[in-house]
């Protein structure tokens, strides 16, 4: 990691932020602000917000590593002033003390608390901006979904595109990480509904439907792909408070089905074992992959099973890999993905395994021929 050249105290804080934050904060670049370019002391953080990233430059000073860092926000957030100025706390509104106030550079968790504090303030800043828009529908939407927790919203406007407001609504109040036994995810997995409303300042009888899209954290794809979910249509005059409950119900059923399909896949892999022998390698958590060693007389090869998340509706993808033939690059010869075998999702797991076995008995002969041919071409 490039953080090696940061002053040790700063590096400790950055590493703590990257490893301990529940958000998946990323470092975009690290650079130097000193005359000596080897002393790096500033970096750009990519902080997840509203299903996107915001870029903040964190400015330390290698000459004074004990001093608190400064932050430069994105150019479009020039009105974001997170910390109250002394003497401005009139009217009895006293903001909580910032973590910058008594900066202790020896405490590695300080940068994390600063970034989280600023991000929370940024969420309320964006919420306030959206709330100030003269748009009746948006005002109504905000007032009706106010009780839902974790909603983030932001304004997006550019010179060449119309003003829009983007909502990110966390769905399903269940802990997806706990649904999967032995789950390897470090970050909390979540599915969000992204709703983009065009801003209409004038009153219109039939406002256009917003663009809706499901977004999930990237690691969730191995269990459940949100692209496969068919969203219900947004009817005229509908609002989010109406749309969300039914949508959430169908989604919940689909997620539970996806979790249950782990068991189905596991039983399928187990059913393969009596025919193919113990798997050489298998994915024990999501049961999406398994590899078996097989032989036809002296021809030995590996069979890779890639089991889709929609199993058993979709059949596994098979790939054969020779243990005896290498191609010109020195890697083992692989067959193309095989899916053109007979399949029915209604079969028992043992029957599925038997059918695949029968298919492979035939197929491995043509694969052997294919391997020999590719060897001949090399000479």
């Amino acid at each position, binding site marked *: 990691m490039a953080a090696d050249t940061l*002053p*040790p*105290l700063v590096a*400790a804080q950055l590493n703590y932020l990257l490893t301990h934050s529940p958000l998946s904060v990323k470092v975009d670049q690290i*650079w*130097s*602000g*000193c*005359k*000596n370019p080897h*002393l790096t*002391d*500033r970096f750009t953080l990519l902080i997840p917000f509203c299903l996107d990233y915001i870029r903040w*430059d964190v*400015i330390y*000073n*290698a*000459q*004074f*590593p*004990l*001093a*608190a860092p*400064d*932050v*430069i*926000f994105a*150019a479009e957030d*020039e*009105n974001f*002033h*997170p*910390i109250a*100025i*002394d*003497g*401005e706390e009139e009217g009895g509104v006293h903001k909580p003390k*910032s973590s*910058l*106030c008594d*900066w202790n550079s*020896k405490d590695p968790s300080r940068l994390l608390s600063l970034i989280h504090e*600023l991000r929370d303030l940024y969420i309320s800043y964006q919420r306030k901006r959206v709330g100030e828009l003269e748009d009746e529908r948006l005002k109504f939407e905000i007032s009706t979904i106010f009780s839902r927790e974790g909603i983030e919203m932001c304004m997006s406007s550019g010179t060449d595109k119309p003003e829009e407001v983007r909502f990110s609504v966390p769905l399903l109040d269940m802990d997806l990480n706990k649904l999967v036994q032995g789950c390897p995810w470090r970050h909390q997995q979540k599915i969000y509904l992204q709703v983009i409303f065009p801003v209409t300042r004038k009153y219109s009888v039939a406002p256009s439907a917003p663009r809706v899209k499901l977004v999930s954290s990237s690691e969730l794809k191995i269990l459940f792909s949100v692209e496969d979910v068919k969203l219900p249509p947004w009817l005229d005059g509908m609002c989010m408070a109406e749309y969300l409950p039914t949508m959430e119900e169908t989604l919940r059923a689909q997620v539970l089905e996806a979790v249950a399909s782990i068991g189905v896949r596991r039983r399928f892999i187990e059913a393969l074992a009596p025919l193919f022998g113990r798997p050489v390698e298998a994915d024990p958590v999501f049961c999406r992959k398994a590899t078996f060693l097989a032989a036809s007389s002296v021809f030995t090869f590996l069979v890779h099973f890639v089991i889709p998340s929609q199993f058993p509706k979709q059949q596994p993808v098979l790939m054969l890999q020779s243990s005896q033939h290498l191609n010109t690059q020195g890697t083992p010869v692989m067959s193309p993905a095989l899916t053109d075998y007979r399949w029915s999702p209604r079969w028992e797991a043992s029957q599925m395994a038997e059918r695949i076995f029968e298919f492979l008995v035939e197929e491995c002969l043509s694969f052997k021929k294919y391997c020999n041919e590719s060897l001949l071409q090399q000479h």
Partner: protein
Amino acid sequence: MDDPKLQKIAISGPTLASIIQRFHSSNGDVDGVLFGHVTDITASDLQDDDGPDASSSRSDSPILVATITSFFCSGTINSFYDSVGRLDLNALRRFLGDRGPGRSFIGWFVGRRRTPLRPSMRESLVTASLSNKALNLVPPDDPLSSSLNFPPCVFIVFSTPFSDRLIHTHEHRAFQFRRSAGVFEPKSVDVINIGPAFRGHYSAFSPSSPFPWLSCGSSHSEDKRSDSLNQVKRIAKEQQGLDLCAEGFEIGRLSSLMGSEAANYTSELEGLYTKMLAKLDGLAHLVEQSSARVFEQENRNVKLRLKVMTFFVVSASGGSSIEAEYCRPFSDSSLYDSAFCLSLAFCWLWSKIKHQG
């Protein structure tokens, strides 16, 4: 109206150049305060025929230009404010104390390398604190500050480009902080005497900058009798030093340069000049050597500081505040002073490190 809008900000070429030079020669980031004056350049010609469009813009918004004439660079960061932008009034008064007459405090600047040219979170806070109405830095009897009640709301960011391949090496951007709206408004910066716009000025040139302010005035005038004894002593000592260089050549004797004996004197005087030049040369040599030593020392300090930092992390027990005291700026004192300070600081730090084992 206590928050008047500036039309533009003007800065003289030498002032801009020396700010950039201070920033360029420092190892890290720097900040400092800006002095100058605000002038009202609203055209005073009164029109009899008050058109509807002219009257509105003329009457209530004077055209103001802030001119930056000098600055003080602290050579460090957080020099008069803390991490959340609260002002350290004592430090600020110290900075403002030595500015001389005719210069009011109109803003501040920051130099930070390879950063975007917009105010950071802390800089916004500091600027907002500076333009706070309750802030009372300038004594009320200061004639300039009272004539135009103008808050120190000018802020200039200096930076260097991210890419090394660009031709220019420094960039800057000036802002006026509008207290009423709480926003920074970018302002154009006119560098006086640079660019074609100023060519016309030379035809009608009249120097407007004040003569450099010298605190030690001439002691001959009668009304300065009340000066302290110390000052009189010092001036006497300086005079002695001067006399030593002149080697008996008083101003009075210069009159002998005219007339019949002039030839002898000329050769003697030339001899004196040669000696003085040799002395100057030696002095220049000394300065060169000591600057080399200062440079070496600064490099060593950077290395030491890094070591100290590593030491902090490894032991994590240190209650000592080496950095805090050690990093005090050796601000605008003369070259010899700073060399002396540096070596003192170094000795002190070295003994402390040795002591800690």
